[in-house]
Every structure is written in structure tokens, then in C-alpha cells.
């Protein structure tokens, strides 16, 4: 099959220019750096009080 035949047999897709899409990251969530309780700095802070008793809910 020649190149010309190929072109005729294939439905041409309309050209669509590439687009840049901005996707927002949430690094403070993504790196698992903090306790999941909002406003707490860690599993042993504030009301938690002990590193052996944390079972925080997620965000």
C-alpha cells in the first residue's frame, strides 16, 4: 500500500495544538510530613501527648 492510499483510507484527525495544563500539587499533604489532625504539628503534640497512642483520622 502506497503512502497516498494510506492517507486516503485514514480519517484525518483535526489538528489540536498542545496545551499546557496547570495541575496543583499539595506538597504539605503529599510528603506525609505532618499529623493528619489539622493544626497539630505531629503525633506527639497538643492533645495526643504520647508517641505510642496516635491513631489520627485522615484529611
Amino acid at each position: 500500500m502506497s503512502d497516498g492510499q494510506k492517507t486516503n483510507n485514514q480519517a484525518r484527525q483535526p489538528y489540536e495544538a498542545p496545551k499546557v495544563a496547570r495541575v496543583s500539587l499539595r506538597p504539605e499533604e503529599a510528603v506525609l510530613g505532618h499529623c493528619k489532625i489539622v493544626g497539630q504539628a505531629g503525633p506527639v503534640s497538643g492533645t495526643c501527648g504520647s508517641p505510642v497512642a496516635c491513631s489520627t483520622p485522615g484529611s
Partner: protein
Amino acid sequence: MSGEPQNSVVDLRPALAASARKRQAGPQIAYSIGGITVGLFGPPDMHLKLDRQLVPFCASPAALDVHIEVDWSDHLAKPSHAPTFHSGGLWSLYEETDGHRFFFSTPFLGAAPYKSAWFDRDFRRGHVTLFRRYFDARRSPNVLEYPLDELLAIHRLSRGEGVEVHAVGVVDESNRGHLLLGHSGAGKSTSARLWQKRPGVRVLSDDRIILRFDRGHARMYGTPWHGDAGLALADSADLAGMYILQHGCRNELTLLPAGRAAAELFARSFVPYHCQEGLKFTLRFLENLTRSVSCSLFQFVPDQTAVETICHA
């Protein structure tokens, strides 16, 4: 950072290896999340117990994917050199010649770390060291307390196994798995509660889901790491559709091109950002995933019609 001085770190591995030979009948616990089974082995004076969230994920310690030894220490200090990665919060990562070492600290307890965790490069073996003075000897230590449990999961998954995402996973009455992804505040727990009202629906988690391929099929797994709705199931299902949650004035689904979908998924994934190999795998995984399962932007209103919209999609 191999070969750098680590003179402020007490290398406990030789001592741990010796104690491991002696401990024989030491306590053992095991759990399985996302098809990966983790076993913990402690010394005789440490009573290991699964955290209550992990109890439904309890597994036989016979066939382990990750083997972790646990011990106490009366001294724990971070290396003097800069970490490979600092989370900006509870943990820092230091590269060592034979693996990775995490240190966990909080301003609440001061500068000294309350725990360290070493893992080999493949996250198949590890040692967790607990700084004794910060733990109540009368209680069972929660060795893999957040964030170590999830750090272990995301690092192991990034070694060719899968990816953990910020999402709610629901399985409908026809056993079809729907993944609803979103950052905090996007409506995951709200969606989970709405789905729960539908008869025959199972919610695998309202905050964290693990995705893997099983015999060529994308599959989602529940985790113990739940959100505000407190929903977590040790269960899994084939994945039928993925939806990026967005609050809206009406329910509307917009199919995303695969490339855009992969980017949106990546932004809602938990990946080891410091690890080139892990990032490469995750991007390949998400590319394959978005080619095999459709992904839509889902603008929704927080009522039962949102559930119907997905069920009839």
C-alpha cells in the same frame, strides 16, 4: 550520600542481628495492606500488638514481603550532615551505603528523634529503633505509627508494585470499583457517606487507596488510613472508573485525555519525591493506568444524585 561520615549515629544493626538470633520466641505480628505483607519482630521485653486500625488487616507471619526487626535504644541522634530529604515536618531521610534511614522527631519532644527506621534499598528488610525514654514501657508501642506505616507503603509500592492515592474507593452492588480522587476538602468523606447509603456498596477507604495491576487488570485496595468518615476495609476490587472530585453547582462528568488524567492522578498520589527510580515507576504506572481505565473530572453536588451520576455513567 554513601560514604559520608555518620559518627553521630549509633549503628545498631550488628547488635540487632545478634539479638535476633537470641530472640527466637520473640513476639511477632503481621499485617497485609494492598497485597503487601509486613511482619514485625521485637525483643522479648517488647510487647508488640497491632494498632486497632490494623487489626482488620492482620495477616499470617508465614509469608512476609517486608521483614522488620524492632528494638529499643537509650540513645538516638541524627547524623551531622544534611538529610537527603526533609519532609518539613515529622521525618527526615538519610541515604546510607546499604539503604535508607528515616528519623522521626517533633518539636514537642525536642531535637532528638524519638524513632529511627532503616530499610534496605528494596524495602524488604528493616530495623525500627525506638528511643526508650519517649515510650511508656507498660504499653505496647505503636511501632509503625503514622507516618512510618504509610512511608513504608509508598516506598515499597514505588519499587514496581503500585501507588497509593488520596482517594475514596467504593465498590458498587455489581462489584465495580469506583475511585474518587481529591485533595483535602474535595469531598472524599462526604462522597463516601453518600455511597454508604446505597444498598450493597462497600467503601474501601474514605482517604487512602492503593492501586496495583493484578493479571493485567487495574485493582484498588482498601487501607486502614481513613478520613473523616472513618471508613476502612481490608478488601479490594477491580477498578471500573476514576473521577477527580470537584465541588460544582450540578453533577457533570468530563472525560479527561489520558495525559491530563495521569497528571491529575500524580498530583493526588503519595510518592517518594526524593527517589528518581520511584518517580519513574510511578509515572509509568499512572500512564498505563489511564490507558486502561477512564478518568473523568467530576463536578458534583453533595447529595445522592452524585452517586446516581456515577452509577449511570
